[in-house]
């Protein structure tokens, strides 16, 4: 059952690679037929900075806020993934299953509250 479905996803994956390839190839053919120009020069290839000369490389440091968001994301996304199997079966399993999930989510919500209190969610 499952391998069959993934085979189909694989076929679609191949199509997804093919679809953007067609216009890119057409673009290349246009260049070969001299319908499309290709005359790069240093000024044209300079990175766009609203007309000002680009200052330094852009591959430098960036704000540490992004790491905090990424960490919080990992925790919550994993939580949701764990909850999916629970969601499909809990209704037939009685209240114990419900309160176990409430406990699980509650601990994480406590963590969110703590992060909020410490100001991790403020974007400065």
């Amino acid at each position: 059952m499952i391998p069959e479905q993934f085979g189909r996803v694989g076929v679609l994956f191949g199509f997804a690679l093919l679809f953007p390839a067609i216009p890119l190839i057409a673009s290349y053919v246009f260049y070969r037929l001299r319908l499309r120009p290709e005359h790069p020069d240093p000024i044209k290839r300079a990175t766009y900075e609203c007309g000002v000369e680009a200052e330094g490389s852009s591959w430098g440091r960036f704000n540490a806020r992004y790491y905090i968001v990424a960490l919080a994301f990992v925790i919550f996304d994993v939580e949701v993934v764990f909850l999916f199997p629970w969601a499909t079966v809990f209704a037939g399993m009685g209240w114990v299953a419900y309160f176990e999930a409430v406990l699980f989510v509650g601990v994480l919500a406590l963590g969110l509250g703590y992060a909020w209190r410490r100001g991790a969610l403020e974007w400065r």
Partner: protein
Amino acid sequence: MSAALDPIRLRARLAPRTLARGVIAFAAFVALNVAIAALVVSGALDGEWYDFRDLGLGVQQLREWLDEQTADQPGWLTDILRSTTWLSYLVTALLGATGILSFVGGVLLVLIWVERRLIGRIQVRRGPNRVGPFGLLQPVADAIKLIQKETLIPVGADRVMFFLPPVLVFIPGLLVWAPVPWAPHMTYVDTNVGVLYLVAIGSLATLAIFMAGWSSNNHYALLGAMRTVAMMISYEIPLALSLLTVVVLTGSAQLSAIVEWQSVHNVWIVVLLPLTLFTFFFASTAELNRTPNDIAEAESEIVAGFHTEYSGMKFGLFYAVELGNAVAVSALTAALFLGGWSMFGLQEWVPAYLLFATKVAAVYFVLVWLRGTLPRFRLDQLMAFAWKYLIPLALLNLGVVAIEAALFRRWEGEGVVVLGGFALANGLLTVVAVRGWARFLGYAPEREPLLRPTLTTGVGGLRAVDRMRTTR
């Protein structure tokens, strides 16, 4: 200025000949519909491959025919694959993939025009109307223009990383269509982990976008990419939580089963879970990078965000995939919240996939409407809205809906009464929670004196047109 000269109010007059043609066309349309209805009622179509109400029947017959062919003559491929149905499997897979690809491709071409025309009307202008009838050929002209434009690679860019994103970004954009139920027997991958698959596929685009921004060696592009990643991963959580709420209610993560559930209970989930729809829709506009949440490519702040340095067809691919994702989100909203292909019994008469397409178009219209009317949020507002507003509300909603789902399993008998009660309770919860939590966080409307908008004809363009007309 007289109405005839006013370019905004100018309308073509209806000529008698056009009117007669219109009447004839309408009569022919009605006659065709009556004929089809008679054919459907007579039952001559039932179970035949040319019954276009259910394309799954034709595929099923094709599959059986192919299986007979391969079962008679087992070849070396049959031995390797240890399956006698590999040919029918391959053919149906290719058929389905071609169908999805042609739908997405065709829809992209049309919707570029639709979106620009609609936004034009919202902003009191015409939109594209020069190329072809009503400007319908505008997307084709755009594509030709983009293909023959020079594609530049900026100095110091990582060439491989710069080339890959326009291709990679298509993969999630197309794979997301796999579990979408088009009609009762028309689902490409009818997997029982459909919703989980959507969550997994949905976060893939972030990677391609970050590659694009990082490899460009441009400050604006990098800023745009960082913003996109921060926003998309923040909104991934309310999105996944709202999908989870739907799964909790219906007890299945299979998209076709969710639509089936709505069909059986004769109810759209939007009535039962309005708060979930709100969370899902807001979070998905953020995932799509569309206004009001398009800070990733905010033109007035960071040029064009992650695709600042992309030109020619590579930019065209980014543009196309953005539209394609918007249609995909419309399809998911229609399937999960608006009943998918079911329409209270109408699906017995009208092809179910047409009903589904109508709902997709309606949701897409709302997306364009939002884009045309709402201003953009600020980055910090948007992040705070995800973490402080949407996630707590989604968690609360999940808890409430879980209780309701458990109760519903026990009282399945009086479905209508129970579901009506849930709809009332959840509607009340939505109003109270949305208002209360917003008040708790201190969100309030701006109390500034409103400027009254006034229509003026003294603006340059209109005045100039007027002068040209009168002097000639």
